């Protein structure tokens, strides 16, 4: 297992590097001189030159690239072109909010989705199955931000059960959880839809296998057959779908953060985008990219844990 883990981590490095290069290059080909964009059309040539000097914009591209990478390695994300605040500081403040939101979405999705998927597979073509399938088709089709707005409208505006905006006071755990509930559910229900659908079809495939019939024939309790025998091997496609859709969820977290005014990475990114603050934008993109690569890595590692065959490939 240790060898498998090390190999997976090593394999993630070139991916990460490619992603970082992509982010770097993309923002370099953005039209317009960044100095002019930031300082405005009427800035004098000296001011522009001084700005380029300070930001290292007049150095050759490959030197900029190398210093971009070495800065990253040292955890230096540069500073905002507009406010001058170090980006690392902003990111450090925002990251926990995005992390807890995405993690709670994934967690809720697995928590609701797997049992619901098993249930709909076992009761195939029953009313429960029909209901579950309708629910997951609807869940696949609703953008998370709109689900967030629906939840906000019903549960906090109409019924006054949950707070509408913000992320709660940082020190107060209960308050934070309270503020996390609706945005977490918005992502979690979407995830539930994906997981239910995948679990159902994975279980249906497994339940046809001979060893399931054997398990039943030798008189094992249905619960044992379902959860110990069937679900265990259905878990591989389920984990892969959770892995794939946690990336989708990461994308949706941006919009959900905006709906609920949570001070997360999405908010920083959107502000940077609107102010054309390429320094902040680049760093936030890097964080999102690293996040995505990490999620992929975790999925791979989980595979190895669940399916011993994969470890020995």
């Amino acid at each position, binding site marked *: 297992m240790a060898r498998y883990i090390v190999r997976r981590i090593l394999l993630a490095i070139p991916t990460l590097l490619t992603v970082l290069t992509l982010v770097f290059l993309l923002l370099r080909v953005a039209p317009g001189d960044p100095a002019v964009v930031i300082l405005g059309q009427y800035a004098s040539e000296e001011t522009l030159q001084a700005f380029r000097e300070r930001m290292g914009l007049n150095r050759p591209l490959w030197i900029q690239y190398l210093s971009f990478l070495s800065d990253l390695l040292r955890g230096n994300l540069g500073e905002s072109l507009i406010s001058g605040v170090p980006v690392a500081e902003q990111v450090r403040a925002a990251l926990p909010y995005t992390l807890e939101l995405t993690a709670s979405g994934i967690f809720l999705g697995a928590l609701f989705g797997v049992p619901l998927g098993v249930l709909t597979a076992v009761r*195939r073509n029953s009313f429960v199955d029909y209901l579950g399938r309708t629910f997951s088709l609807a869940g696949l089709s609703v953008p998370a931000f709109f689900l967030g707005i629906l939840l906000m409208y019903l549960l906090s505006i109409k019924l006054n059960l949950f707070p509408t905006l913000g992320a709660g006071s940082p020190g107060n755990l209960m308050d934070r959880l309270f503020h996390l509930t609706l945005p977490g559910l918005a992502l979690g229900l979407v995830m539930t839809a994906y997981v239910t659908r995948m679990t159902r079809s994975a279980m249906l495939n497994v339940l046809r296998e001979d060893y399931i019939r054997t398990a039943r024939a030798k008189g094992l309790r249905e619960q044992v057959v379902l959860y110990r025998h069937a679900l265990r091997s259905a878990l591989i496609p389920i984990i892969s779908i959770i892995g794939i859709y946690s990336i989708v969820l990461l994308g949706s977290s941006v919009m959900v953060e905006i709906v609920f005014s949570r001070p997360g990475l999405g908010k920083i990114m959107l502000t940077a985008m609107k102010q054309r603050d390429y320094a902040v934008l680049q760093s936030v993109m890097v964080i999102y990219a690293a996040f995505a690569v990490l999620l992929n890595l975790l999925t791979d590692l989980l595979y190895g844990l669940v399916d011993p065959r994969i470890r020995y490939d």
Partner: protein
Amino acid sequence: MTDELVSTRAIPEWAVKERPRRRRWRTFLRNRTAVAGMVVALLVVMTALFAPWIAPYDPLAQNVFYRLTPPERTHLMGTDSYGRDVFSRLIWGARISLAVGILSVAFGMIAGSLLGLLAAYRGKTLGALIMRAVDVLMSFPDEILGIMILAVLGAGLDRLIIAIGIVMTPRFARLSYGPALAVKEKEYVEAARAIGSSDWKILLRHILPNVAGEIVVMGSLWTATAIRVEANLNFLGLGVPPPIPTWGNMVQSGIDQLTYAPWLSLFPGLAIMITILAFNMLGDGLRDIIDPRLQE
């Protein structure tokens, strides 16, 4: 054994004569979910096409006497804070969602399939390079990749289509790569090469038709994805600039007024959901025809 026993009378005539295409169509029609999806999707397309004739009001016309009217007979979905008719804006918004959804998928379909075919056919270095780039692009969340590309391109309808088109490209590349790789080794491709067909002719004449079905089917499913990304980006205010109504920016501008004018966000949000649902149902049904194993 008499001829009576092996008589063909038991087999209905259509089963003998029917062509595969008609049989597929029949399978499709039997799938009620898919047909419902198709009907709703067509309705949305019609709404978009005939927006100027259907919409009761000018979507941009402001009317200070009718600000924030709740849904009623003259304004079916109420009015916004400028007194604009939400129903009319919703109808016009269908144009943006569909234009972006369909055109960006077309973009991704053409660019992606060509890249996938090229990667499969050219193997080795170029192929590996293309597929590596595809993997990397696919490891990004759609919306974040879209935002990144819009940061480079700037806002506007055309840029939005290109941005989402680029987001869709890697999927089609990966989709066409696998089958193309398999077909490449078939004898008839070998034969085509032997009689001196050019690479592009082989790709387009002999390999593409084999993967075309799947590409079109997934295209309808991914139109749903493209519309989702479009709604998200417009919701963030990064796509089509106001005052042009899009479902995304209508939802966005209604959020602050959710307590006293919920219709501003809820109707366009429902429109997004129903449209995506329709394309999902249609795509699912089409996929079942191509690959009956997936039918449950």
